[in-house]
């Protein structure tokens, strides 16, 4: 019964975007998955939401500049459990072309656990959607864990 609940619940992943100092390229590609009929992320039950408190899947783009670091961590902590993170683009993993820049500190995975990584500069919309689907798999496992622990 609970397994079924988790299976059904995992078909409604709501997505929240965090821009951690990205150049906006990845953000444009993310918007593409939602706005362009050809990709239509909503057919997977996804919905881009404006509030971190509504989110299940977090898409992070950008190299985590020093300036936004604390704000990103604060927003990340406001997302209710269970949640998964997807790093979009190479910046969150390695800093990309901003690596060793004066405003870029350590990589994001020193602060936030990254579950799925979608490399690319920027990645194609298909790749982002595949990343979301993989993240949903991880999320489902976490849902089952949390629901079974509560009961």
């Amino acid at each position: 019964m609970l397994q079924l609940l988790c299976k059904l619940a995992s078909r409604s992943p709501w997505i929240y975007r965090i821009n951690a100092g990205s150049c906006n390229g990845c953000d444009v590609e993310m918007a593409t998955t939602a706005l362009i009929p050809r990709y239509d992320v909503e057919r997977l039950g996804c919905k881009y939401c404006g509030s971190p408190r509504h989110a299940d899947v977090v898409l992070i783009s950008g190299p985590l500049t020093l300036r936004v670091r604390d704000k990103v961590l604060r927003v990340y902590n406001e997302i209710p459990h269970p949640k998964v993170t997807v790093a979009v683009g190479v910046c969150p993993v390695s800093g990309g072309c901003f690596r060793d820049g004066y405003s870029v500190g350590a990589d994001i995975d020193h602060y936030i656990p990254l579950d799925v990584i979608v490399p690319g500069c920027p990645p194609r919309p298909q790749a982002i959607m595949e990343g979301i689907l993989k993240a949903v798999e991880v999320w489902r496992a976490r849902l089952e864990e949390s629901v079974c622990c509560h009961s």
Partner: protein
Amino acid sequence: MTNVLTGILTNSLQAVFAMLIFPGGLFVLALGLFLKGVDRKVLARLQRRVGPPLYQPVLDILKLATKETLIPDTANEGAFQLAPVLGLTGMLVTAALLPIGGVWNGVTGLGDLLILLYLLPIPAMGLMLAGGSSSSPYGALGFSREMCMMFAYEMPLIASFLAVAVRVGGAGGSGGSLLSLPAIMDYQYLHGPLLFDPVMLPAALALLLFIPGTMGSGLFDIPEAEPEVIEGPLLEYSGPLLAAFHLMSAVKLVVVLELAVALFFPNPLVATGDGGVMVNLLWHICKCLVLLMVSVTCFRAATGRLRLDQGFSFFVKYTSPLALASLGLAFLLR
């Protein structure tokens, strides 16, 4: 004495059944989520997308039920938790009071337009309480926007209620007005639906614009505007409390559609009896679907969002005069 007692007992049993199962409670929740699903699917098809499956709203509710509930430190905890419960229960009770043509005549003595006028703003009150108690600046903005819009769209609602009441009461020969919904429906069974009455056409149009106004869709997606105030009052909600708000919105959708159907086109398709009730119920759902397509889905696919002042003056300048015109004509032709 026993007769009176059994009468009271059956009446209250009937009321409990109406609130928990049909036409309130389970039925209205299922219908509301179905209508929401149809709305999302058709909107997606209009935008040439595939869109989510029809049962997506149900999945969303299940998902939200499994999530963690976060309450901000600075929020007023009691009011924050009360708001969604208040809105949802208020709407469920309202749904139980609405009669359905050829299926259900409403709880005896309660199907009254005045009661509906008090019950209909409850979800807006819930949202205002939510926005006010969540201690978020966006919640406060949503609160003030919700309140402004409520003042704007209540006026055409009251005016079209009165127009219908005066029209029906005047035709009854009493020269007064009739505020009872079953009586209004009986009048339409005899004289044909008010939708096709030229005097009532402006009021019907006003009510058609009231529906997106109160549901916050299309032009009037102002209190919960996602890119502007990040869903305003709902910003700080998560988990089951957010699910309650989504259910409230689904039930509210059914309530306003059913209300418009009852006021302007309640006529059943076939006579009651011999399975006629089921046919009439399906017919009623079809009417709700058509109204949903016209006033919510196509409307929001075709229009963008207005500013708060534009939305307010839209109702004051265009919608209210329509309803008032009907009211005036109904008075003159009494």
